[in-house]
């Protein structure tokens, strides 16, 4: 039967064509050559692949077996092996052995590389960046500082970069805020946070790596509080103000938070660390940011989570739709503890209750405690930090988006990493368990012309092209309606063990999914990045919805990450499924259900660049028809550039 899925590589024996009218037949010779080459490579790397037990994350993560080393060692080899489409898709394992049947394109010419640079995401003019630091709003300007390597496109020699903006979108580069010029930060001017005092003055606490490689906390402040640009910074002459306390390792003490007021009128901060394999958050009180008393207890700790980096601690309102200043406490207020886990390089958060008297916090739901539960973002996203924007009374979240290509490509293109578009962060009143993230409203000012598509019917097993001019800088807001009859009729199964990461991606057909969008896809779907929902029905009849981002065919290149990102997304009764996607060259940020589940992904196509990029709707489910309504805007550049005439 002609159950066509044009997403699947059609073998030469099946002459069917996809709905765009183009056959995607593979010529026989390519199959032969690829099998030959595949076998050759099998011989070379057999030892590696035998040991590879299951899909793992790109860089050093193994979610199934924390601490298992053998599998970690081979995850890079995993990049060579695309996720198998599976026998159900009519494709044999062998022909997909290494490259999905095609010889590798010569990697990375200048055209491909220069296309990757983003148009409206913050990034320095060149070189390496990582964590966002000390974000704040002061005298009319938003400030962003960031970890920066002035010498190369790889991590190292870290100092503080600096930029300002009136609207969190149009950034102007300023000179470096702090260099590694003191013994206490010679080996790295690392992450820190700003606190705005009662009188409006700013203090900055940051981690320095000393000449001996010990992690200490240092104090710095603006050289001139009347300079709205805060160009020059002064380090407190008697730094460090904090050194690793007894029982804490010299390399396990970093990333101090913004301070908040205790009921006694002292300032309180927390600093992440670990004891053996337990991730912890230490607490210190201070009146002057120079002298500190460490509390006996910890803010919180979770066994097995390892080192907590970039801890963040902040209040959220259970009832209001605005952010809360960091010191707020009381009824109707919950507190969030967030940690970046060094072991798996993901950012986790949990919502709970803060006890001001003893400086402790407990999660509402210990089963989804910090480090074992919810993540800010299920893609490539780390070292996130919030700040309270007193200008617009919102809490804004920054996150570092690294590269998932090879460092050779980064060196060749001369830069690495971007920051996410800043997101507002709110307690999700509807679920009570999640935070909602959403791009700041100022991003809407970049919208140029928009095109609306209403009630587009996408039948099971089809792809619908969307006719828009250019598709590398987009804001897409889409809503999907599904046939509730189909949901009822679908038989429940033990398919309920679905997980985006271990699935066959957008090519794996289920009864109720996948369906969604293909971005950075070309006409022939040779390269494509699906962002989609996948619904499952358990044997108990309960529906679960997953939100995924499939990188497995995002590029023909073999040295980029090909894993599938995603997670469960709560969908409440009566809600339509919704996705917002920001496409900006080599980065896509996707928001499911209003930001309940978010996935950021880096995409490095070899063909789908410039005018070749297109957008499609797709529905690869077998038993579900879907209707989509969407609006797509072209996005202007943010023209991020050096501050003029400084």
């Amino acid at each position, binding site marked *: 039967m002609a159950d066509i899925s044009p997403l699947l590589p059609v073998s030469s024996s099946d002459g069917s064509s996809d709905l765009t009218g183009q056959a995607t037949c593979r010529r026989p010779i390519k199959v032969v050559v690829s099998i030959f080459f595949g076998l050759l490579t099998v011989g070379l790397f057999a030892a*590696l692949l035998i040991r590879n037990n299951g899909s793992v994350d790109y860089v*050093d993560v193994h979610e199934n077996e924390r601490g298992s*080393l053998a599998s970690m060692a*081979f995850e890079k080899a995993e990049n060579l092996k695309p996720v198998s489409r599976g026998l159900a898709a009519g494709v044999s394992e062998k022909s997909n052995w290494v490259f999905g049947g095609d010889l590798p394109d010569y990697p990375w010419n200048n055209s491909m590389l220069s296309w990757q640079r983003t148009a409206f995401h913050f990034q320095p003019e060149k070189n390496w960046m990582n964590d966002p630091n000390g974000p704040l709003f002061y005298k009319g300007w938003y400030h962003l500082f960031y970890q920066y390597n002035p010498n190369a496109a790889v991590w190292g020699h870290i100092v503080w970069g600096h930029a300002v903006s009136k609207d969190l979108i149009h950034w102007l580069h300023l000179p470096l805020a702090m260099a590694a010029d003191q013994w206490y930060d010679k080996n790295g001017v690392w992450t820190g946070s700003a606190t705005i005092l009662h009188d409006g003055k700013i203090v900055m606490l940051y981690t320095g790596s000393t000449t001996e490689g010990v992690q200490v906390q240092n104090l710095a402040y603006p050289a001139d509080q009347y300079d709205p640009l805060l160009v020059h910074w002064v380090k407190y002459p008697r730094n460090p103000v904090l050194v690793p306390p007894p029982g804490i390792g010299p*390399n396990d003490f970093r990333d101090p938070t913004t301070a908040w007021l205790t009921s006694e009128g002292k300032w309180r901060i927390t600093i992440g660390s670990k004891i053996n394999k337990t991730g912890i958050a230490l607490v210190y009180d201070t009146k002057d940011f120079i002298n500190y008393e460490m509390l006996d207890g910890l803010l919180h700790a979770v066994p097995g989570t390892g*080192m907590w980096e970039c801890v963040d601690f902040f209040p959220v309102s259970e009832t209001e739709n605005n952010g809360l200043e960091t010191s707020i406490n009381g009824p109707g207020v919950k507190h969030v503890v967030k940690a970046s886990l060094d072991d798996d390089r993901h950012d986790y958060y949990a919502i709970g209750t803060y006890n001001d008297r003893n400086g402790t916090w407990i999660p509402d739901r210990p089963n989804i405690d910090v480090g074992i539960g919810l993540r800010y973002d299920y893609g490539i996203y780390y070292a996130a930090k919030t700040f309270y924007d007193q200008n617009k009374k919102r809490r804004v979240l920054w996150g570092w988006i690294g590269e998932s290509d090879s460092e050779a490509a980064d060196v060749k293109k001369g830069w690495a990493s971007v920051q996410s578009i800043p997101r507002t962060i709110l307690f999700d009143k509807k679920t009570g368990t999640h935070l909602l993230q959403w791009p700041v409203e100022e991003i809407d000012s970049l919208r140029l012309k928009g095109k609306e598509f209403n009630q587009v019917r996408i039948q099971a097993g089809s792809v619908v092209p969307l006719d828009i001019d250019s598709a590398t800088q987009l804001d897409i807001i889409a809503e999907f309606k599904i046939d509730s009859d189909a949901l009822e009729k679908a038989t429940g199964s033990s398919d309920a063990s679905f997980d985006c990461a271990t699935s066959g991606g957008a090519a794996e057909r289920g009864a109720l999914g996948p369906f969604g969008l293909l971005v950075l896809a070309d006409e022939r779907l040779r390269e494509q990045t699906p962002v989609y929902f996948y619904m499952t029905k358990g044997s108990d009849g309960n529906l679960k919805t997953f939100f995924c981002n499939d990188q497995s065919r995002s590029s023909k290149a073999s040295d980029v990450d090909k894993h599938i990102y995603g997670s469960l997304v709560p969908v409440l009764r009566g809600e339509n499924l919704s996705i917002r996607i920001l496409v900006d060259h080599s980065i896509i940020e996707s928001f499911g259900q209003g930001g309940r589940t978010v996935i950021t992904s880096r995409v490095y196509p070899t063909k789908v660049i410039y005018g070749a990029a297109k957008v499609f709707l797709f529905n690869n489910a077998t038993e579900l028809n879907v209707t989509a309504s969407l609006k797509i805007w072209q996005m202007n550049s943010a023209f991020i550039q050096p501050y003029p005439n400084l």
Partner: protein
Amino acid sequence: MGNQNLIERTCKQTPFYDLCIWSLKSNPESRDASVKKLAQIMVDSLKTKATETLDLIDELLQDGLALDPEMQKALTSCAERYNVIIRGDVPEINEALKTGDYKFAAKGANDAAIEANSCEIEFPTKSPLTDMNKVVHDVSVVAASIVKIIQTKFSF
């Protein structure tokens, strides 16, 4: 003699036990080394092997006239990758080990493995670098494994 145990225990937790043992034991500094030092020794070994491979690539490229264009293209790309291993990855790993931000040591080591793999698959037919690419790849993987041990070990 005293550190035999640590070296063996460490190498058992890497996927290439023999290579790990050999690389560490052939360096006299492994005698009383901490796990962190063993990682540093492994990185030195990575740098040595990568440099040898780059030297070979340069030699092969000198024989320019004898090479077909595909081979030349692949070798040039490999040279770029090996330059990144030596001048990008190795310093990154070393700085991360020294300052204790281990995720960047893991990143650098993992990337070196990718660069070696990527070089190998650039050759459309027979690669002249197979053995050396495999060594560099495997040494990188061992280094990454040792970094993982440092990250997750008890006590500091």
